[in-house]
């Protein structure tokens, strides 16, 4: 068991060191591989350093199947709630990643919606970007506010059934360019409730390992979307919808397609228990040449789960889902322990 790590915090000066741990056992029926690339155990190590207006943040995942520097951000705070930074980060059009990052304990469900899945977990939206980003909250009248996040940086490569973003540890995956933005309205500038819109434009380059469409050069992708994150009493809902327009540039004949994907997750808290359900779907998946590049992308999923929070920042979660990907229908049951240590 990890021990609590001491930290220091003086106004404007200090550091934070947090460990998010998780361990999972799951069973898939039929045994489709790879139905998921979720690690069986992982430690997400978050470190941030603040010196007056300078801030550094790093997030390292050490897991059963990978070790990756997920985020590394160095920047400047010109204002108490505005941060300009350079580095590797989760680009703002992926709403789930912007809220939960790799902090498994903080998200109620075990799985994340597939449209917002990590690149190496068959996500079809670029999540990791290396470049420049600005995040800011502005106060409006009567304690309401706007949150704005805008980024510009590298795109991703399209590999063998997965997107491959730039990896800072081995220097691979730097490709194309991408722009992303999120604007949200906050009814309480200090609260979590938010509703807003998402925009993105990416150039995804086909790599040598991409063999499904051999003459593919790149994909120019436009994304528009909307999100809602709302808690009222003991109920919480998180939802997002994305419309993607993909222009495939091929050595022979270029093609275009579009599809729409979204999800709704509803949660009900009863004391230390949380019951939840999520429904996800993708419209236009069968006609999309872009989605054909990702045969393991889950086009539809329905799930239910229950979570128990215990001790200080520990949780155990049981989740069952029924899903469909390029290989057909499958079901999965998973049980997971997660925790945060500071």
């Amino acid at each position: 068991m990890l021990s609590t790590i001491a930290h220091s915090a003086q106004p404007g000066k200090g550091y934070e060191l947090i460990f998010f741990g998780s361990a999972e056992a799951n069973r898939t029926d039929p045994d489709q591989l790879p139905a998921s690339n979720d690690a069986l155990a992982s430690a997400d190590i978050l470190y941030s350093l603040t010196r007056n207006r300078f801030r550094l943040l790093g997030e390292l995942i050490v897991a059963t199947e990978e070790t990756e520097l997920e985020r590394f951000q160095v920047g400047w705070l010109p204002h108490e709630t505005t941060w300009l930074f350079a580095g590797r980060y989760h680009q703002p059009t992926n709403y789930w990643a912007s809220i939960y990052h790799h902090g498994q304990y903080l998200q109620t469900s075990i799985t994340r919606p597939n449209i917002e899945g990590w690149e190496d977990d068959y996500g079809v939206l670029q999540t990791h970007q290396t470049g420049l980003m600005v995040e800011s909250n502005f106060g409006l009248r009567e304690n309401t506010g706007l949150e704005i996040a805008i980024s510009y940086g590298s795109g991703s490569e399209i590999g063998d059934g997965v997107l491959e973003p730039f990896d800072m540890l081995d220097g691979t995956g730097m490709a194309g360019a991408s722009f992303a933005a999120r604007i949200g309205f906050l009814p309480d500038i200090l609260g979590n409730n938010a509703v807003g819109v998402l925009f993105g434009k990416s150039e995804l380059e086909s790599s040598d390992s991409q063999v499904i469409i051999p003459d593919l050069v790149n994909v120019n992708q436009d994304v528009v979307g909307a999100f809602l994150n709302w808690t009222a009493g003991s109920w919480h809902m998180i939802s997002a919808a994305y419309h993607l327009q993909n222009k495939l540039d091929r050595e022979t004949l270029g093609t275009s397609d579009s599809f729409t994907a979204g999800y709704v997750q509803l949660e009900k808290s009863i004391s230390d228990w949380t019951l939840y359900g999520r429904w996800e779907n993708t419209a236009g998946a069968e006609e999309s040449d872009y989605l054909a590049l990702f045969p393991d992308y889950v086009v539809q999923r329905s799930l239910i789960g229950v979570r128990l929070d215990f001790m200080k920042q520990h949780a155990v979660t049981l989740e069952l889902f029924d899903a469909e990907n390029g290989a057909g229908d499958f079901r999965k049951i998973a049980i997971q322990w997660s925790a945060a240590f500071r």
Partner: protein
Amino acid sequence: MSNLRINLFFALLLAATGATAEGQREVVLVVAANSPIIAVSSLELRKLYLGIPVSLDGVLVRPLRNHSDEQLQEIFFQSAMAMSEAAYERQLLSLTLRFGRLQPEVRHSAKELIAILRQDNNAITYMWRSDISVEDGLRVVKLLWLEH
């Protein structure tokens, strides 16, 4: 004379239970007596304890969490932060994960907090009014909760 002694006895008894002379307990926001901090709004207080740097009256305020008393904490979270302790801890964790924000310091005794306040004019914390005596050299800037 005997009535005076009886009144004095009950006043000391009330003080020992954290009550005011009128029998009501209070949770107050306090700073050093010679701190430049004059007033703190409810929004500023929430920002401080959510790790957002706040300057008040020309100083960068250093918020301190008081973990000396469970009931005091419960009252603070409900009255000042409008959330449970579990929700507050989760919110702090989320803000650090998302933005790298520093979390407020925690102290576990009123005596330690009073010592820090006396040494640091920028520090602020919450405590039972009855934990403060005139000799401590502190000043109340806000009443957070009054027992009904």
